């Protein structure tokens, strides 16, 4: 997949992967970020144009300084959709990305033509409470605080946008 930086009018910069040709898909990744070699993304690209932005905070924690809640995140994605010039597209989210996709669809119901939620995170059902991933000890977790802590210590606190290490892209 091709990887480019898209600048928003607000000054925010997004890393966006894209590839394939055909009807447009906007792919929102799960907790492990975008894996450009993901076989699912490869299969989709045989029939669709796939655009896969890297969620705020996955490259640089400072990207989150203006985003305090899910509504601001949805607005941020709306800015990105505008900057990418996407008019008609299917919105597919996986895990954490499916939570964002559902919020985008709720905030901007006319934006996506179709909505696909794969193993969506964040949709509450009393009978089937979702795992509390934010309460997973970082020594046992490869995501969230553990990832942030390891990145902070690896770079001695100098956090800046960097490509995601390969080890995070694939399940061990």
């Amino acid at each position, binding site marked *: 997949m091709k990887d480019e930086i898209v600048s928003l009018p607000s000054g925010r910069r997004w890393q966006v992967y894209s590839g394939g040709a055909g009807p447009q898909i906007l792919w929102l990744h799960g907790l492990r970020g975008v894996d450009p070699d993901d076989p699912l993304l490869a299969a989709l690209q045989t029939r669709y144009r796939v655009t896969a932005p890297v969620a705020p905070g996955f490259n640089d924690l*400072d990207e989150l300084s203006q985003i*305090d809640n899910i509504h601001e995140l949805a607005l941020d994605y709306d800015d990105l959709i505008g900057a990418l010039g996407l008019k008609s597209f299917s919105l597919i989210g996986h895990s954490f990305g499916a939570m964002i996709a559902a919020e985008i669809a709720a905030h901007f119901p006319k934006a996506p033509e179709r909505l696909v939620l794969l193993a969506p995170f964040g949709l509450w059902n009393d009978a089937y409470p979702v795992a509390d991933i934010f*309460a*997973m*000890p970082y020594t046992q977790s490869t995501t969230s605080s553990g990832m942030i802590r390891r990145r902070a210590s690896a770079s001695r606190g100098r956090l800046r946008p960097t490509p995601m290490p390969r080890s995070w892209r694939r399940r061990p």
Partner: protein
Amino acid sequence: MKFHFFHLMPYPELPADFREKNRSVWVDVPSSLFDPAVGYRAYNEYLDELEYAASVGFDGICVNEHHQNAYGLMPSPNLMAAALARRTSGVKLILMGNSVALYNPPTRVAEEMAMLDVMSGGRLVAGFPVGTPMDTTFCYGQSPATLREKYREGVDLILRAWREPDVFSFNGKYTQLRYVNIWPRPMQKPRPPVWVPGGASVETWDLCLENDFLYANLSYFGYQEGQKIMDLFWNAVDRHQLPHNPYRAGFLQFIAVANDDAEAERLYAEPALYFYQRCLHVYAGFVNPPGYMSMATLKAGIEGQVARITNRAGARAEMATLSWKDLIERGYLVAGSPATVADRINDMADKLNVGHLMTLLHFGNMSKETTMYNTRMFAEKVIPRLRSRFSEWDDNWFPRDVPLQASAAPAISPAAVS
């Protein structure tokens, strides 16, 4: 130097196999372990112990806030402070304190603290902790990413509510109020002293130093472990170009006084191990949710004290096999004869430069009799040896003694009423 008696109010009857059978003492601790009859006895004995400490000469008595926590039975320390306000006089009430971001609107905190200050005749120390991740994120559902900002806004609102003579409007990000005009107003002017109990965070130190609040490090691991944090605090004091007045800092220390080392072990080993092994058994997933620690604190390489014992490889297993000897050697506890304890606290005063010592003389499942013995030994045989420390400095972070006409004691005896 000033000496305060701090009570955590732990539930005293957690079973011996608590660690093996449960994942956490905090947040999701099973309610089946709570017996209200035990709670009734504990609350009343613990209040007795705080009142006793006041009667033997401690400068302050401290209560604090925890939620869904079997080692801290005070979701509302304000209730305890209210009970103590009526039963004590002279001693200062150190409310350590209210986690401001949990109260909506935060003027509730300004109101209750003003009530306590007036009821007690100007004896209140107002504590504003950010609150632990367990209390704030997991028990009270606050987003760790916005907690600190919400906390700071709440503290601003409370200070204005105490300070501004006229009705004002507050248009914050988290709280909007058209009419702020709390009744009553605090007795202490311009305001009660503010203490900020915290583990360690860069923002907390800046907040304290910018606003002339006291910083209190509530460490469970003794002053040797606490030195790194207090050094960082005094570095922050230097950055703000302020004098190293020891009274702008407080430190919590477990203390066990006896006639000799052997008696100390006999009396205090069981309650100490009860605390370290059962009360500090916190599920690792609760101690550091993403976003709770600020970037500045993360970059400074500071780790929370509960995170330290739950997250490091092998740390949990190590806690399970801890012995009395380990507790003493590592300096978690200062224990022994009055002379030994006084020497160690002198050493702490030298190294940490703290003017306010918060003593934990009750810990774990210590009996009332043992607690009173420990408290009396400390008050009678240790405090006199240390009282003159730091007397060359002014303490601007503590309530002044105010002579009052009204007595804090009940004006009408219960017998007269019935």
